[in-house]
């Protein structure tokens, strides 16, 4: 009997140690989050001022560096255009997959390749747009805001499609069948029953894709590139927060590095706000 009690004590001790380790690992996982947020606030808030948000970068190496107005506006413009293309497209593909392509080889192929697209590194999309649109000078210019949007849209498309597909699958078939039994044509069932039911979830998934795209540097680096001035013409080169930060990081000038921290805080705030809105949208969902 004594061996059993000894054994039990050892087992209980192992249990306690391992549970402690799992807790410690969870704590450890949160350390980088705390550190990133801490340093962002500490270094970024100092850079924030009225001028920071209302002036463009000057490009001077010495003296006044200017703010990030053009970068913030550029990010918003390019992400908005990308979203305007990728979200309807992604929803349409997801609708096809759920409504018509549940079985069959074509549907399976589309689903597989959307998955493939999800895994493509963002730099490869940037590279692709660079050699197809930028080098060939499509639309009369080399670098342009809309080309950045194309790269971002390619990045968003699979994410929007996958999340929309998941949500559309949650719409109960009973709803579809009830509407069709009443004589409603399929396209009206989709537009008037399926889409409204899934809408909150669709919006959540799409906004999360938008949030992800807003933080991407690699696709914009060789498509919209870096400029100082604010522009509302998507045919021109366009600044963006991630590219501005990427450029500022490697500067030996402390003021420029300071601006990078401020811009990083602004970017993270923008992304978190989008994420928050996305989460609020799904609160209204009646699908589980």
């Amino acid at each position, binding site marked *: 009997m004594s061996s059993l009690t000894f054994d039990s004590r050892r*087992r*209980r001790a192992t*249990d306690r140690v*391992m549970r402690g*380790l*799992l807790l410690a*690992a*969870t704590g450890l*996982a*949160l350390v980088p*989050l705390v*550190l*990133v947020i801490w*340093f*962002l606030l500490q*270094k970024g808030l100092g850079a924030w001022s009225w001028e920071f948000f209302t002036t463009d970068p000057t490009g001077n190496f010495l003296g006044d560096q200017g703010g990030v107005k053009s970068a913030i506006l550029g990010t918003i413009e390019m992400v908005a255009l990308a979203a305007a293309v990728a979200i309807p*497209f992604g929803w*349409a*593909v997801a*609708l*096809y*997959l759920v409504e*018509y392509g549940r079985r069959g080889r074509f*549907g399976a*192929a*589309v689903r597989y390749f*959307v998955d*493939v*697209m999800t*895994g493509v*590194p963002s*730099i*490869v999309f940037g*590279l692709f747009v*660079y*050699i*197809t649109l930028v*080098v060939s000078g499509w639309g009369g210019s080399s670098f342009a805001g809309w080309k950045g949007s194309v790269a971002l849209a390619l990045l968003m498309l699979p*994410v929007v*499609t*996958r*999340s929309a*597909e998941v949500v559309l699958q949650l719409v109960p078939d009973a709803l579809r069948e009830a509407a069709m039994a009443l*004589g409603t*044509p*399929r*396209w009206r069932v989709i537009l008037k029953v399926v889409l409204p039911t899934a809408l909150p979830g669709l919006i959540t998934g799409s906004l*999360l894709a938008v949030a*992800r795209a807003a*933080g991407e*540097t*690699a696709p914009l*680096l*060789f498509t919209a590139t870096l400029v100082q001035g604010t522009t509302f013409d998507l045919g021109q080169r366009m600044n963006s927060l*991630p590219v501005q930060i990427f450029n500022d*990081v*490697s500067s030996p000038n402390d003021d420029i590095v300071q601006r990078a921290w401020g811009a990083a805080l602004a*970017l993270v705030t923008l*992304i*978190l706000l989008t994420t928050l809105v996305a989460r609020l949208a799904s609160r209204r969902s009646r699908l589980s």
Partner: protein
Amino acid sequence: MAATATTDARGDRSILERSPSARRADPLFRGVLTALAGLVLALIAFFFIFLLRKAEPAFSHQGVVSFLTTNDWNPSKDIFGAWPLVAGTLITAVIALGIGVPIAVATALYVTELCPRRARGPLVVLVELLAAVPSVVYGLWGVFILIPKLKPAEQWFADTFDFLPLVGGTVAGPNYFIAGLILAIMILPIVSAISREVIATVPADLKEASLALGATRWEMLRMAVLPYSRAGITGAAMLGLGRAIGETIAVTLVIGNSPVLGHTIFDQGYTLAAVIANEFGEAASDKLHAGALIAAGLVLFLLTLLVNAVARWLVHRAEVKAVGTPAPAEPVTVAA
């Protein structure tokens, strides 16, 4: 609606029949959706063929095998041996998995099986917040905080354990290890989220049975939960690997960008993605150099493709086994 509104006075058509224009709407709608779905396939085919064609000059100049295995990346002499880049990509990814996966799985185990119910939601949100931080911000943080703060610790480790392979020497500021560490942080949310899903599919019967037999909580996790979800967790790790291989900006900022293969994990290095980000500006006019970079992109693409295919297959199999129907391979996380 369209069907009942059109009553034909002469009785050619039943009032329940749809008008010809209404009947056309359905196939039209279906056709448009199918065409858009087909466009995705066309897009990817175009994407792949285009990359292949543009990479051709580099492959024919250097040869595919030589491109992958030559340890010399020297664009000014037209030598494109991508081995230092491929090796750098693999080294950083392995470090990222080595650090990130155990922590991610431990977090998933703690959150799903051990933590108080009330703490579960907030913990999940906090881990997912890690995915909301953009790559360039991790890079910024790595350059100005992580590199200077960790350097003494790395040097101590290199001096103390220099009998281990790949450890020792003088620690460079930016190096493979720092890049791997940042990648570990970046893949943590996705690996943790998928592990959580997989662990949640372990049947309660199994867990209760092991507890009823007198197993402690840890023994229950080790003997019931982990073996059951092993394939799924492996898949989650592979998806993390796919992310780590393709990550560009954060790595570019902290790996040192030296095209020479380092001797230890504390040496400067380079990765496939970083070389594309850095050299594209200068390669625009040089077809061969540009081709070499596109070839690097292609290798990256195929590498992630392979890794993701294996990962999805594993996760899919684990979930089919669990519930009989496949669940979505990737949950909708902040950065999904």
